[in-house]
């Protein structure tokens, strides 16, 4: 008996991760994802743990390589869309991505911005990034798209003298600040410690 849920988390990756972990505690594990869909089947309560990983900056090949690597590590990996995109026609431009990933097309990287990684619970914490340097790097990848949005909204707000766009700029400032503070924190730690 599978259970279907429809949820919108947008950029709140931690909220999504927490929700999935709560579902697992209640005895449901993920079997399929769709645009807003999460389909679960029953499992033992707390049998699995979840991490939500942002990979939109990766090119198609690198995203696939990473996906396969995680599966080889024994994890179950689901692609998920982030439901947050700015688009021109059918092509999405991601100037913050690495080479090969800057133009997101439907077939390649669009709607595959996240990986939901599932691990059988062995009682240990489940973290994908463990060294300070790597965490700093990961949070930069999370910050950059928001930083670009912030700049764009700001420019358009000034040009159009629009309050709404100004408000949008302020809203995108929040994740920039949150991720930036994580970056600074990890950078500070990395000065004396590796992990």
């Amino acid at each position, binding site marked *: 008996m599978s259970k279907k849920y429809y949820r919108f988390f947008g950029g709140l990756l931690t909220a999504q991760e927490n929700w999935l972990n709560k579902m697992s505690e209640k005895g449901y594990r993920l079997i399929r994802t769709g645009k807003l869909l999460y389909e679960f089947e029953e499992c033992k309560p707390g049998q699995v743990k979840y991490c939500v*990983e942002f990979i939109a900056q990766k090119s198609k090949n690198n995203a696939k390589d990473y996906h396969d*690597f*995680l599966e*080889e590590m024994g994890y179950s990996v689901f692609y998920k869309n982030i439901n947050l995109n700015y688009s021109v026609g059918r092509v999405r431009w991601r100037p913050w991505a690495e080479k090969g990933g800057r133009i997101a097309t439907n077939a390649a990287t669009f709607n595959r911005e996240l990986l939901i990684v599932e691990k059988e619970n062995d009682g240990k914490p489940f*973290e994908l*990034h*463990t060294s300070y340097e*790597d965490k700093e790097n990961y949070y930069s990848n999370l910050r950059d798209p928001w930083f670009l949005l912030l700049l764009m909204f700001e420019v358009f707000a000034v040009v159009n003298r629009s309050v709404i766009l100004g408000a949008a700029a302020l809203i995108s400032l929040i994740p920039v600040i949150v991720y930036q503070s994580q970056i600074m924190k990890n950078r500070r730690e990395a000065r004396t410690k*590796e992990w």
Partner: protein
Amino acid sequence: MRDNVKGGALTEVTFYILLSLYTPKHGYAVMQFIEEKTGGRLSLGAGTLYGALNSLQEKGWIEPCGDSEGRKKEYHITAQGKETAEKELARLHELVSVASGIVGGTHYE
């Protein structure tokens, strides 16, 4: 004279990955090796391991081996990687001897 004056220190993660690959391993086995050898003190996240394996491969210190058709990708250490590991060992010997002299004898356990 020492010939390890140049080259700098490795991170612990880098050094352990190099050590683990003296015999070929895939990612999961590298992770297990490190956890086992450090008694669980150093537990590597898969994302961090992935990044480290890619950087070490770019450096030419490790390379994929075995038939590439096999499902799991295995790596092993290169000659250059071994040289790096030897230098690091010499550096650590020096560090331990200086530290022992100052902090006190080597009381392991």
